[in-house]
């Protein structure tokens, strides 16, 4: 494996790890439920994507890389579904989001 691919893959792994930690820090820092979902989104998309990309570069063109791509697609399709279900369930159970500005009313008289 060339040194260049190696370097890019390490950079992806480290950056992915950092983004995962940032998402988790956001999970702790955000003031209430709906804003915390946004922080978790960073972990789910950029963190996961970069780590899987780094591992794929390490694996090269093998079945292992295909499996990693499958995990990536799986996370890509399922995480929004779970997030949407969470947000909808929260709203349906009467969890009031903390709002700076509510523009949902005018179009729904």
């Amino acid at each position, binding site marked *: 494996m060339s040194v260049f691919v190696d370097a890019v893959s390490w950079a992806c792994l480290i950056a992915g790890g950092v*983004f995962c930690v*940032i*998402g988790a*820090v*956001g999970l702790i*820092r*955000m*003031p209430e439920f*709906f*804003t915390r*979902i*946004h*922080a978790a*989104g*960073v972990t789910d*998309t*950029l963190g996961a*994507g970069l780590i899987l990309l780094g591992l794929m570069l390490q694996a090269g063109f093998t*079945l292992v890389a*295909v*499996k990693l791509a*499958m995990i990536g697609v799986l996370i*890509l*399709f399922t*995480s*929004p*579904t779970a*997030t*949407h279900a969470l*947000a*909808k369930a929260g*709203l349906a159970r009467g969890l009031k*989001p*903390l*709002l*700076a*500005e*509510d*523009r*949902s009313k005018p*179009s*729904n008289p």
Partner: protein
Amino acid sequence: MYTLSSILVLFVFWLLLSGNFTAFLIAAGAGSAIGVVLLARRMEVVDHEGHPIHLSWRLVTYWPWLFKEIAKSAWGVTKIILNPRLPISPTLVRVPTSQKSTVGVVTYANCITLTPGTISVEVKEGEILVHALTRESADGLLEGEMDRRVTRFEGRR
């Protein structure tokens, strides 16, 4: 048509997962792929919504743009999280949708949720209730570039 392509996709999935190419394993894979699709047909879930092959080739132009958007907005959310003052201005906003089919609306809602900073809370006829982390991300969504791209991705039938 959809039955055949479902069987094919499942069989390729089996081969990639197993990684062993002996006669018995290939036969078992083909058998289970056909069995699963027959069961799915009995449940009447094999149609163009469960398995939209007519959309496959448009993914090539749509996904790179989506990945770029995800990276951009994830970077924005990262900056907000790391900012000691935590400059958030959560906003609820109703976004109109222009897609015709259910698949199109679901794709749009999923893409809204997938980009950090905006989540779709409720999907209704012709509009999606969106919770945005900042006013700017809500405004960006209302400009409607993603809406237009998803509509183009959905195409005409």
